[in-house]
């Protein structure tokens, strides 16, 4: 019974495809999968925007949206209907293009942003047997399409003919290029241990249980460090606080999409959130066991429920961080990427190699943890080397 519930979407896909003539089946199956991604993830996006506004409101001790319910009825959902008028507003607003803008590139930039982000979903496993294309080199595909986002950011910033847009684009590209390296290097450890770039093989490796606890990579020393590095780098890749310099409202208005309004702005907004979900999905797949359950007695819960629960849990942490931390400065951003994250990611690769070849007992735990802890302390000290951080003095208006 639970197995059937687990495979309900796969069965539904096969059932729908069976109505189509034999020759068109693969095409129909791809179209249904595309429709699934195009409907589910924007829906998750719209729910996330409302969670984000309400959550940040709560954390910052204010209300946030709390009125809107279902339109044309008296039902109030404590503000959870807010995304419907928000969406209608976005779609019906006037589309303003600056006179000096490069019209074609300005038009193409949001489209070019969304395409690679949507392509990245093609390789993510959402559940058991729920991968759209099971590429042998899925991880490589994910990073390859992710690289194309930078070009769209540049297109948006350059074509607007606005210094704030260009500054935002420059910042965004510098940040994405810098943080892509620790992102990929932290993922490399998993590839080394599993010996495959296929995301389903990576999940299969984590889908085993000892004493009822799953073999998720986050439960190993190198996996924990890898996950934290991946998490920080994915915050930076999706331009979230504290890495939101590219769109720092108080400095450069909105960065590279300053000159976008209406539907094009909505596309950027959507692209940014979908990119965030995709990269979180990859992080879950690599370190948090993908759609597997953390403990063996909960394996009856359908796999896609686990995937989306983990996704929303990490999105919540992202929102939490956004409401809590202030923005970094540009030099802090670069120093952190190149002097702390990159060396730690390289040491982590070494540790993952050691872990793979040492015998599975307490000694490898000791050795690997010691190396990582020592590296963390030394690198942290090095980062703080010339920063004269004394006791903080508060001055209040008198």
């Amino acid at each position, binding site marked *: 019974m639970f197995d059937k519930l687990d495979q309900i979407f796969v069965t539904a896909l096969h059932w729908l495809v069976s109505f189509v003539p034999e020759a068109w089946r693969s095409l129909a199956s791809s179209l249904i999968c595309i429709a699934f991604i195009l409907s589910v993830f924007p829906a998750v996006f719209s729910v996330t925007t409302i969670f984000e506004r309400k959550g940040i409101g709560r954390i910052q001790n204010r209300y946030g949206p709390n009125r809107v319910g279902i339109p044309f009825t008296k039902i109030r959902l404590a503000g959870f209907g807010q995304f419907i008028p928000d969406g209608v507003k976005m779609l019906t607003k006037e589309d303003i293009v600056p006179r000096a803008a*490069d019209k074609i*590139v300005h038009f193409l930039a949001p489209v070019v942003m969304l395409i690679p982000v949507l392509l990245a979903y093609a390789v993510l496993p959402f559940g058991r047997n729920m991968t759209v294309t099971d590429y*042998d080199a899925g991880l*490589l595909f994910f990073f*390859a399409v992710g690289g*194309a986002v930078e*070009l769209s950011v540049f297109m948006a910033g*350059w074509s607007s003919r606005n210094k704030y847009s260009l500054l935002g684009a420059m910042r965004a590209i510098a940040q994405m*290029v810098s943080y892509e390296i620790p992102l990929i290097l932290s993922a490399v450890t998993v590839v080394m241990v599993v010996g495959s*770039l296929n995301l389903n093989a990576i999940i299969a490796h984590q889908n085993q249980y000892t004493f009822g606890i799953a073999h998720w990579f986050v439960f190993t020393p190198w996996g924990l460090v890898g996950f934290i590095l991946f998490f920080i780098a994915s915050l930076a890749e999706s331009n979230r606080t504290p890495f939101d310099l590219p769109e720092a409202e108080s400095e450069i208005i909105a960065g590279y999409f300053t000159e976008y309004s209406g539907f094009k702005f909505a596309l950027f907004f959507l692209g940014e959130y979908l990119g965030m979900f995709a990269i979180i999905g990859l992080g879950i797949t690599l370190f948090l066991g993908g759609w597997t359950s953390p403990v063996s007695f909960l394996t009856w819960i359908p796999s896609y429920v686990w995937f989306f629960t983990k996704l929303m849990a990490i999105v919540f942490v992202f929102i939490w961080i956004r409401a809590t931390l202030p923005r970094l400065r540009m030099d802090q951003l670069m120093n952190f990427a190149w002097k702390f994250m990159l060396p730690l990611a390289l040491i982590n690769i070494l540790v993952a190699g050691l872990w793979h070849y040492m015998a599975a007992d307490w000694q490898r735990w000791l050795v690997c943890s010691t190396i990582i802890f020592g590296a963390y302390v030394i690198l942290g000290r090095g980062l703080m080397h010339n920063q004269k951080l004394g006791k903080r003095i508060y001055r209040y208006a008198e």
Partner: protein
Amino acid sequence: MSIFFILTAIVTLFAAASAMSLRNLVHCALALAVSFTGIAALYLQLDAQFVGFAEILVYVGAIAILIVFAILLTRSGEAPENSVLTSGWMAGIAISAMVFTLLGWAVLNSSAIPKENPPAPVATVKNVGDALMTKFVLPLEIIGLVLTAAMIGAVIIALKESSKSETAGRES
């Protein structure tokens, strides 16, 4: 020849042609990125996944960005007034067509190429990785060394400039 091959080939050739002939240099760079993507699609149709993905990762993700930044930082975005084609473009096309014909004829009549098609090699990403780590490990290491040297050189150049500007800032 499938319809997908013809479509990607047309897109790639068209983008490559516009990369040469557009007036605005940034447009040219973007057209070049499109043609890189088209080439990657062609590789993927040949089942060369590693080459295809590496093409996108390196050429679209890094080299196109590098070109675009180089254009932005060295000159203003103004398009040139006069035509981008030189006066002797007819002769240029004729010469290149002749060279292409000659090379094509030489390649097709070469005895080095086996006449019957060899069996398609299985080049999965795993095989490529295995080959790089066993048979071709020395070239890989040498390339790594060269790249590291280049990176250190770039850092040293950047360091000198920053220390100069720092002292200049202090004097003024």
